């Protein structure tokens, strides 16, 4: 457990450092980024430099950042002029809610689809739909869903953020491509599991086709899906950037986009570190879940 914790800390530090170096290597200085499109005079530059202590060497700024971050102080946003913890903190819940609901919906949809579309014709229809969904930009899916269910039928609001009704369309938009890909992986896993000798044994015991599928094959098919959860988190966070813009939802996605385009270093670093943290946590959970699902792994 201690080892895992130490590895996690190293990953966080590496992520923060990599992001720091990337932003340092990006063209233009921090002062350029803060000046932006506005007026640009030596006096304005001097004031910006002294306000953010940008006259110190990059190494000193980096070490100072690490020192403060270690004490829980993530600094202030250059652009929004608020503490980073506040900027991110207020946007965390909406994004996590969206990602969790969409992720869950995606997995449930994938399970249902993979199990119910075993007949050749159903399989063909489902595969085509999956392919279309995986290759359609989620921006387009969002606009289409909005046009039908919000603008035309008026069932769901276009934005609102807090209510459950406002969560439906964004979550579905985010879940559809996820469900499509997971269905393909699951179906592939089911096909492979059904070829295994233990399925013949199960059938020989007189087990019905449905029971074979749900009780035995799915367990095997789930393992590759579980290892995909790290990837799933990336998709959900990346998708949130677009979904939040389309639906006018608050969230981390919009904050990240704004911070990256305006080189708002403190916010970008915080988002990267947070993402790394969630990634580590999710992978740990995924490893534990594999233990639960596959008894063979428990022995070693």
């Amino acid at each position, binding site marked *: 457990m201690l080892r895992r914790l130490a590895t996690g800390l190293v990953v966080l530090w590496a992520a923060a450092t990599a992001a720091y170096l990337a932003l340092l290597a*990006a*063209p*233009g*200085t921090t002062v*350029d*980024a803060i*000046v*932006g*499109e*506005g*007026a*640009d*005079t030596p*006096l*304005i530059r001097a*004031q*910006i430099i*002294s*306000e953010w202590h940008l006259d110190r060497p990059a190494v000193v700024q980096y070490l100072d950042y690490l020192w403060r971050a270690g004490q829980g102080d993530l600094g202030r946003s250059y*652009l*929004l*002029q*608020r*503490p980073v913890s*506040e*900027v991110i903190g*207020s*946007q965390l819940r*909406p994004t996590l809610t969206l990602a969790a609901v969409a992720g869950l919906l995606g997995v449930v949809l994938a399970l249902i689809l993979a199990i119910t579309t075993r007949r050749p014709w159903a399989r063909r229809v489902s595969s085509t739909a999956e392919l279309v969904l995986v290759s359609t930009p989620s921006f387009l899916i969002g*606009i289409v869903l*909005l*046009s039908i269910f*919000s*603008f*035309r039928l*008026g069932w769901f*609001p*276009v*934005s*609102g*953020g807090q209510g459950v009704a406002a969560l439906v369309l964004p979550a579905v938009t985010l879940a559809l491509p996820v469900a499509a890909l997971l269905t393909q992986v699951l179906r592939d896993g089911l096909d492979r599991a059904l070829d295994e000798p233990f399925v013949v044994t199960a059938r020989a015991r007189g087990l019905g086709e449905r029971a074979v599928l749900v009780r035995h094959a799915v367990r095997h098919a789930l393992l590759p899906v579980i290892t995909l959860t790290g990837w799933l988190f990336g998709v959900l966070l990346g998708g949130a950037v677009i979904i*939040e*813009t*389309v*639906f*006018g*939802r*608050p*969230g981390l996605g*919009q*904050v990240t986009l704004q911070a990256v*385009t*305006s*080189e708002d270093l403190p916010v970008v670093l915080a988002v990267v570190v947070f993402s790394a943290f969630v990634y580590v946590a999710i992978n740990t959970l995924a490893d534990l879940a594999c233990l639960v699902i596959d008894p063979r792994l428990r022995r070693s």
Partner: protein
Amino acid sequence: MRRRFLLIATVATALLAGCSGGGGTDSAAAGSPVSGGALTWGIETEPITLNPHQYAQAKARLLTWNNFEALLTHDDKGGYLPWLANGYQVSPDGLVYTVKLRSGVSFSDGTPFDAAAVKANIDLLLSDGYAPTVAAVQLKNLKSVDIVDPSTVTYTLKQPDVLILDFLSSPQGAVVSPASLKAAKNLKAGGPELAGTGPFILDRYTPGQEIHYKKNPAYRGKPARLDEVTYRFLKESSVRVGALTSGQVQVIEGVPATDQARITGNPALTLSRGLNSGSAYSYYFNVTHAPFDDIRVRQAFRDALDVDTVLKGVYRGTATRAWSVIGPASPLYDKSLEGTYGTNPGRANATLDAAGWNARDAQGFRVKDGKRLTVRLVQSSPFVRDRRDILAQAVQAAVKQSAGIDLQVSVVDQGTATKALEDNQYEVFDNSRADTDAGAALNLLLSSSGAINRLGIQDKAIDGLLDKGQAEGDPAARAGVYRDLQQKVVAEQALIQPLYAPADQIAANKKAGGLGFEPTAGVPASAYTVWLSK
């Protein structure tokens, strides 16, 4: 310089005239004004800051005036009306502005509005690191602000500067409760913790989602008609339009050409447009190196371009062509420039031949001494709006076809764009500014020491005209100065290729009345005069 003694008296009616002016959308369907109700307004841009002193986005202006007010406001003829002030006087030498303040006004946190409050705001603006842009640009000629009595302040200048009046009516000049400025936790970000004197009170801000105002019950003047107004941030234009057509919001701003048919085709909706103040969206030719150091190449570029056709292709006939660096809505605009240049490929080719660019390479581009006639335009992607990237591509195709000019357009991140400008690795710079006084924009863009002088121009005559325009108090004489200036930079020296006049659009359900554009600025006005019929 002689200067007239000017005194503007306040008349209550003049106040109302000042805020309801500008092409309104008041339609018969909305009927006569009613009080009460809650309105939802879909807007394109979430402001970076809600502190008016830090204001930098014209798109945030309609929010600012809901809860804040400045001492003066613009009328629709380029003049000023008193607002939080009762009137102002200018000393004969143009150096001292004496402003009489309204009495009996309080900020929404209960702090009284008086001369001390006004001075506290200026002191903060001039303090180190608070608002460097305001201190370096708008207040650069301010020597001191002094309290004469609780309802009188004087602004003393280092040199005559009529733009101080523009500052006194700008969001940066808005007067914020000094007590709330002191107590604010995130001062520069602003928000509900900053108190103003406006007709509404900002009571809720949900970043990324919406901002909510409630009526200020203690407002000094005629109260606002709406009880509450919510501005929802909807960045996608098709989503804004859909939210309006389905009745989820009653008003939206920012309707691009591609979506306007969906509004005009709907009998329940109205669409209105307002031309912004300030400088037109233009290409500035970098004169510090080849090829635009040669005036013939600049003239040829403009002759090669048929701006009307390009605009029609990109904006479907909804854009207003610009002929000068100053937008056509400004009182300083020189109308005589219209139709004097451009759309003459024959002359463009002859000029380029004469300038030595008479060979062509395999791709059909002009060549001189083995070098292609290449000019580079670098656009910073966070600031590309109004499909300006598409417009650049249309211009690129047009000048290639008609004169063999190679316009290279790159849309890059902001750091790369700033670096290209700093390293002088560009030949074309694109920009429009929404300053309410076009003179303020030109000071930045054309002056030798201008903060956005991307022309690289160092011209004593231009600087002289800019200084004269900034010091001239008489509106007619001032317009004359800027006419000379526009003749010089647009007609004589061909430094600029004006393209279009930036505009704002408001689309609304006919139930909403009292909507309009702010006089002079030309951006959507605040919700003060808006009502919603039942």
